């Protein structure tokens, strides 16, 4: 039982990392409908940004902040200078999927060229595991969970209570109607990419912090699990993404307590398939389905 609870504790840490990336991609997808395969690289660009700062000043807050800024800048720039021209030219989203795959490979190779392919250590404040209720966490784990909780609370507050968040939901519902209502959809979409990039950068940094290091393909590998969590939650549903991340994160870590950890990713996808068997549209069904049924 203790092992199980400890595994749940590790699951909550994985879920926190996953939630940052999953909520980011769901938020972006709900507002812009572009499936973004380069998001794992946005995470890694942020994480490597944090790593560079670490070589100058060892302060975990400053490092995380750098990851946020780099992630946001890369995400915004990729949308503004690459994807937006495609969108304006009326390119279909399936084509954009391939474009983002290209961006993913290019960014991975940029990281490879600059930092090399070997595993680089990302140092985090070390501590002996501490007992928090039934869970066994390091200080870094606690920081990761708190960072995720704060970020997700910000997402909730912005979406529910601010004019910008409401306009994001309006654009997600119907971009055309949003425009004739006076909402500057283009600006809302650009800011959404900026925001999703910031969360991705932070997610990449905490991912590296938990593993203890970085390599260029880490983000892409992690993205598979992010997609699983996003689909489990209901595609394009920021709140569903939180649930999906929780379910997948805990399933992965609890399984590792009983079967070899190598199967973690397989477990994530097994959880995905099981969820979809019973809830074909994910835990929180997407908006368009609801409209179609109405």
């Amino acid at each position: 039982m203790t092992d199980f609870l400890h595994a749940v504790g590790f699951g909550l840490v994985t879920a926190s990392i996953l939630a940052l990336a999953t909520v980011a991609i769901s938020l972006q997808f709900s507002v812009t409908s572009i499936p973004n395969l380069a998001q794992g690289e946005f995470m890694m660009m942020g994480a490597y940004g944090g790593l560079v700062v670490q070589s100058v000043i060892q302060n975990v807050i400053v490092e995380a902040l750098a990851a946020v800024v780099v992630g946001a800048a890369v995400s915004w720039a990729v949308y503004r200078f690459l994807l937006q021209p495609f969108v304006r030219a009326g390119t279909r989203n399936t084509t954009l999927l391939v474009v983002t795959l290209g961006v993913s490979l290019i960014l991975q190779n940029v990281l490879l060229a600059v930092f090399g392919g070997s595993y680089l250590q990302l140092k985090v404040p070390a501590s002996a595991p501490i007992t928090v209720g039934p869970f066994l966490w390091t200080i870094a784990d606690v920081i990761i969970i708190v960072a995720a909780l704060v970020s997700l609370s910000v997402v909730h507050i912005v979406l529910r209570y601010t004019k910008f968040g409401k306009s994001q939901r309006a654009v997600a519902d119907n971009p055309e109607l949003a425009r004739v209502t006076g909402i500057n959809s283009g600006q809302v979409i650009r800011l959404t990419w900026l925001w999703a990039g910031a969360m991705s950068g932070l997610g990449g940094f905490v991912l590296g912090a938990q593993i203890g290091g970085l390599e260029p393909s880490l983000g892409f590998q992690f993205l598979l699990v992010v997609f699983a969590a996003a689909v489990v939650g209901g595609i394009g549903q920021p709140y569903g993404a939180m649930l999906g991340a929780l379910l997948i994160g805990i399933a992965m870590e609890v399984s590792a307590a009983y079967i070899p950890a190598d199967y973690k990713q397989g477990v994530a996808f097994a959880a995905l398939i099981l969820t979809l068997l019973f809830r074909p549209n994910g835990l929180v069904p997407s908006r368009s389905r609801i409209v179609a049924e109405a």
Partner: protein
Amino acid sequence: MVDNQVGLPVAVAPHADPILIAENVTAGYGGPPVISDVNLRAARGEITAILGPNGAGKSTLLKVIAGVIRPTQGTISLRGEDLSMLQPQELVRTGLSYIPQVANVFPSLTVYENLEMGGYVLRTGVKERAERLCEMFPSLKACLRRPARTLSGGERRMLAIARGLMVDPSVLLLDEPTAGLAPRFVQSVWEHLIAVKDQGVAVVIVEQNTRQTLTYATWAYVMAFGRNHIEGNGGDLLNDAALVDAYIGKG
């Protein structure tokens, strides 16, 4: 009443001082033009109707005026100012409000949030304006916290109209606001539009329900095959039933 096709003299529109003028508008969706050389004038305090059979280009004309589609030729002007270079979100600021036929509310937003988004371009007074509209549309007042997707068809239409009125527009463009509604809601929509018109708004409405529309319209344009066909004041057109029936069928 005039049939431009055979070159009869053009009747003088009763609205000597139109706020909205569409002149020789040609537009489409990339292929051959859907509307060609269409003209329309609308004045404040009047209901201007655009009628005609399916595929006549009525909705297309409305979309051009709302800035959703750009005309390939012709001009749209509001208070004498050319609108053709403005984006839809900028047009709202000039006092033009457009309510599409379908998908005209934000389903996942609550009724109140829909009203807030309707007032997106307002700097102040959103709350006061929403309260006033709730008095105008009492059925909305009871469900302000509900997501719009849970509303009935009639309530949804009321919300769409209220959303369009949030900016206190001088021109309100509506695409078939009564289509598919139960008769009591149809009546209610008309009552609201008449009230809006009486407040000095230029109401421009695309409709299928011809007879009822002509009863309320100050001036009506009948379109066919993407062109202006007949125009006249509502009463005259209604009395010339044979002519109207020939183009739009029995309403």
